[in-house]
């Protein structure tokens, strides 16, 4: 992977953007894609919608990646300046404990816990954030109830792998951004949706798809892998290529479109694997239910330790996903 590509991933994953507070990541993406598309707009919920026009006889193809990341939201500030919080999306209390977090205004905090006698008592309501304030007034000068925090971790290379917070789904954003940049002659009009609020219920994609009314929808998101010690039973492995989703708990991918993507990958010698994800959903689940229904598929980037501050992907898988998505939008999509 080029240093330029790594820096793009680093910037995208390190940008701030828990669900509902996606402004910083939206600005990051907009600044980097606007030269490669014909039109950019932000909708009522905050989705960034970028249109790259193709020939008039092409289809309307919605490419989706969600911008938001999991995080924490302040619900209470106590007299001593400690913050209580609720989760934004799937935050595991065991994983949050001891983490460093940061707020949009740069405030750093540490996740601590009340005295407990049993590890089973590690629950979100026993955790708090310490921002170093001496009392409530000092805390309130830096944060307010309703402010959101994200995990504070940097992106790093580990051999051919990359670790960072928020690979879910900034790596998907990078795949779609690169697809917009590298697609020189789209056969279709591309509606690239960088969606908000996926982690709290596929909300952004749902309203974006309603407005676009696409002929085809393809989401790019991370998926779990079964390749770690005593991990889940799942065939997807890091480094074995783009994962073409068969199903998850939010959708069964359109069989024709899914097999079309498989054939395309095989023809172009793009490494791919099939994915059946038992638990978990993604934006295509909302896209396929739009109006009278939309054929929808998902290209997944295999990712270890999803919903932790250290999500790991393989650079070759990322390249495979980009190549497959570029091939898709340059192909007839006559599945």
């Amino acid at each position, binding site marked *: 992977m080029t240093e330029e590509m790594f820096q793009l991933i680093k910037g995208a994953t390190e940008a701030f953007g828990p*669900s509902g507070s996606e402004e910083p990541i939206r600005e990051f993406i907009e600044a980097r894609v606007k030269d490669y598309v014909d039109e950019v707009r932000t909708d009522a919920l905050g989705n960034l919608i970028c249109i790259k026009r193709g020939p008039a006889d092409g289809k309307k193809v919605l490419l989706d990646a969600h911008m938001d990341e999991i995080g924490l*939201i302040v619900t*209470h500030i106590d007299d001593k300046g400690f913050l209580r919080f*609720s989760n*934004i999306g799937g935050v595991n209390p065991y994983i949050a404990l001891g983490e460093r977090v940061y707020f949009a205004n740069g405030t750093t905090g540490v996740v601590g816990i009340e005295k407990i006698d049993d590890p089973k008592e590690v629950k979100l309501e026993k955790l708090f954030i310490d921002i170093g304030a001496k009392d409530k007034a000092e805390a309130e000068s830096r944060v307010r109830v309703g402010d959101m925090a994200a995990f504070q971790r940097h992106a790093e290379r580990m051999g051919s792998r990359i670790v960072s917070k928020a690979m879910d789904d900034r790596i998907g954003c990078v795949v779609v951004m690169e697809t917009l940049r590298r697609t020189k002659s789209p056969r279709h009009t591309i509606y690239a949706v960088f969606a908000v609020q996926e982690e709290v219920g596929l909300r952004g994609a749902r309203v*974006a798809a309603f407005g676009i009314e696409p002929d085809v929808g393809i989401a790019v998101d991370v998926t779990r892998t079964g390749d770690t010690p005593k991990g889940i039973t799942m065939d997807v492995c890091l480094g074995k290529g783009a994962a073409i989703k068969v199903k998850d708990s939010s959708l069964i991918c359109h069989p024709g479109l899914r097999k079309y993507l498989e054939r395309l990958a095989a023809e172009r010698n793009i490494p791919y694997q099939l994915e059946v994800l038992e638990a978990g959903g993604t934006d295509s689940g909302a896209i396929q239910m739009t109006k009278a229904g939309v054929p929808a598929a998902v290209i997944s980037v295999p990712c270890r330790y999803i919903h932790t501050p250290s999500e790991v992907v393989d650079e070759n898988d990322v390249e495979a996903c980009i190549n497959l998505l570029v091939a898709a939008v340059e192909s007839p999509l006559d599945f």
Partner: protein
Amino acid sequence: MDLRELASLPGVSGHEGKVREALVSRLREMGYEPRTDVLGNVIVRTGGGGPKVMVDAHMDEVGLVVTAIEKNGFVKFQKVGGIDDRVLLSKRVFIGEQRVPGVIGVKAIHMQEPKEREQIIPWHALTIDIGAKSKEEAEKKVKVGDYIVFDTEYEEIGDDLIKSKALDDRVGCAVLLELLKEKWEKIELYCVFAVQEEVGTRGARVAAYQIAPDMGIAVEGTICSDLPGCEEHQWVTKLGGGAALSVIDRGSIPSRRMLEELLRLARENGIPVQFRESGAGGNDAAAIQLARSGCPVASVSVPCRYIHSPVSLASKKDIQSVVKLLILFLKSVEGGFRP
């Protein structure tokens, strides 16, 4: 129409008819022409010439529904909406249109094994006694599908409190009536009295689809757990602490700009407000924000102690704070505020 009348009417989800009739008649008296949609939502449109603002309160309340009548004349039921099984015991109820009185009974303490006393009796192990001797006798009064409401008298207690069933969300309905006493000209205001919130924000979903609002506000009764034995950070809201502004719940994340505007208006006009300090629960804002291509939403709530039980408490001052804040907010939209 006052809150006493509104809250005393039966309106379990799917059976909002009595509440709807009362509201429609009141709205007509006020000079409006309310429309009832196919799911039973009451929609009032007023003003015009500006952004479409949907303000929503739900008419339905949590309750029970008759599922079977047993051979001995006892009535089996299911819960409608989220009710803690522990609050059902020994409650007086009314069943159906005829308001047949009944009691949710349990065997006497003398007859319980010590272990039984430590267990929560699940709703499906409870029955309602309507004083019938047989199935035939019971069937003359009660049918499967009849809704069941708690028999709770509306009273004012303490200096400032209201004690009633169904404050969630008849307080919201009462607030909407207050908003409709004002004259609105530079916004297209839709007040929606929604059905079936407690079973999945169903009414608001179809109402918002019809309206396609530019912004939405859910006016709710919300959790208030400021009780002995609850730590302050788990209170969610404080009774008498003012209008409660949501920062997140399971169904929606409010628009930051709308939240800031509500806070500014409260601050500059001396209206008591508090944050709703929890991520739990959800309300009609969840459905409104997802209508068509989406719209920004906010939730402004009246704290209700003992919510989703046969009896809850709310503060008249809090209700007034919600009314004042929402009037100021809508005026601000008339003056050009956009989310």
